[in-house]
C-alpha cells in the first residue's frame, strides 16, 4: 500500500490530538480514519472497522433524518464536501455499531491540496441533546 498524501497524514495526526469526533475520508469516499472521540460516538473502535468504502460506512451507520426518513448517501455532509467541493452541515440520527441511536450534527469540508487536487474530506461531529 502506498503512502497517503502528506495533507491526509497531517490531518489524521491533528484529528488524533483533538477531543472532537472527526472522520477522515479520501477523495474516493473511502473512510481512512476516525479518532477516539468518534469511536465513542459511533460505538466502535477504528482498529476494528478499518478502512471502508463510502457505501459501506454510510449504510453502516444508517443515517435517519429529523423527519424519520433515511438520509440518502449523497445528502450526507461528507458526500457534499467530496462531490460539490464545499462545506456542508446537517443534523441527523445515526445508529452506532453498539446499536444505540444518537442525534448528531455533522459539518464537513473538502481537503484541497496544491494544484487543486481533491485529497478527501473531513467530517466533524457533535452529539446533540
Amino acid at each position, binding site marked *: 500500500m*502506498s*503512502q497517503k498524501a502528506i495533507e491526509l*497524514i497531517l490531518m489524521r*495526526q491533528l484529528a488524533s490530538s483533538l477531543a472532537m469526533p472527526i472522520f477522515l475520508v479520501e477523495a474516493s469516499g473511502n473512510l481512512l480514519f476516525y479518532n477516539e472521540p468518534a469511536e465513542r460516538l459511533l460505538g466502535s473502535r477504528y482498529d476494528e472497522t478499518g478502512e471502508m468504502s463510502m457505501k459501506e460506512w454510510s449504510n453502516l451507520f444508517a443515517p435517519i433524518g429529523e423527519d424519520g426518513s433515511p438520509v440518502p448517501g449523497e445528502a450526507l455532509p461528507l458526500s457534499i464536501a467530496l462531490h460539490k467541493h464545499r462545506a456542508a452541515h446537517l443534523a441527523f440520527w445515526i445508529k452506532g455499531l453498539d446499536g444505540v441511536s444518537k442525534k448528531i450534527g455533522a459539518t464537513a469540508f473538502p481537503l484541497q491540496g*496544491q494544484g487543486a487536487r481533491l485529497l478527501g474530506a473531513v467530517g466533524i461531529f457533535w452529539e446533540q441533546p
Partner: protein
Amino acid sequence: MKVTLWGTRGSLAAPGPETIRYGGNTSCVEVRGDGGALLVLDAGTGIQRLGTTVRGGRGRIDLLLTHLHMDHIQGLGFFEPLYEPAREIHIWGPPSPTLDLRTRLARYLSPPLFPVRLRDLPCHLTLHNVPPERFEIGPFEVEAELVCHPGSTVGYRISEGNRSLAYLPDHEPALGVRAFPAKPEWTSGFDLAVDADLLIHDAQYTTEEYQKRIGWGHSAMRDALAFATLVRARRFVSFHHDPTHDDAMLDRIDAATRATGDATFALIAGMEGATFEV
C-alpha cells in the same frame, strides 16, 4: 552516481574551530551522474564552495530546493555559475498556492537583503515548480513529495539506473504520532525513501532537545533512525546538525547511537566534504 556533502549544518551556519570536522555550512549536496550531469540539492552556504569547483564550465546545472527557509537558500547569491553568461541553470522548488517560485526567491535576491536582483543574473536561468509526478533531468529520475515540515517543503528521491538517493534534510515524520514509527502508508516521506541506497535525513536533535522543539520541523536522532529502519535504507547519513552541536557533541551523539546496536543499516554521521558512491 557520486554524492558529496558541501553543507551539513541546519538552521544557521556555524563555522569555527569547534565545528571543523562536521562542518559549519548549511545544507548543500552535490549529485553527479555517471556521465557527469550535475544536480545540486539546496543552496545553503555550502553551495559557495561547490560553485568554485565548477567555475567556468559550460554544462547545465539543476538546483533542486527542498524549501525556501533561509538556511537552504542563503548561499544562492554566492553560487558563481549564476554569474556566468554561457551557463544554463534550472532552479526547481516546491509549489506555493499563492506565489510562484520566482516571486518567492526574489524576496531574498533583491535589495535590501541582497544587492543583485534575480532578474539581473547573467546566466540562462529557468525556474520551475516541482511537478507532482515523477520527472526526468538528464540521466536522473526525480521524485518530489511534500513532507512534514512547516511551510511548503518537499523531499527528493533521485534515481539513476537502479540506484537511489533519498534526501529529506528537514523532516519531522514523528510529529503527532503516538508510537513512531506508524504504518508506512501513514508515514511522511515513506514513498520517497523506501529501499533507498543512501538516505540523507534530518537528525538535528537529541531526544531531550526534541521534547522542547516539537513542531519545529526537525527530527531527533532516535526518530530518524526509526524512519531509516522503517524505509529499509541501506545507508543512513545524519544531516542538518544543530548549530549548537560542536564536533565533540556530534561525536557523542554518534557514539551513543552506535552503542544501541539498533541500526540495521550503515550508520554515517554526515560530515562536510564526505563523498558517497551510490
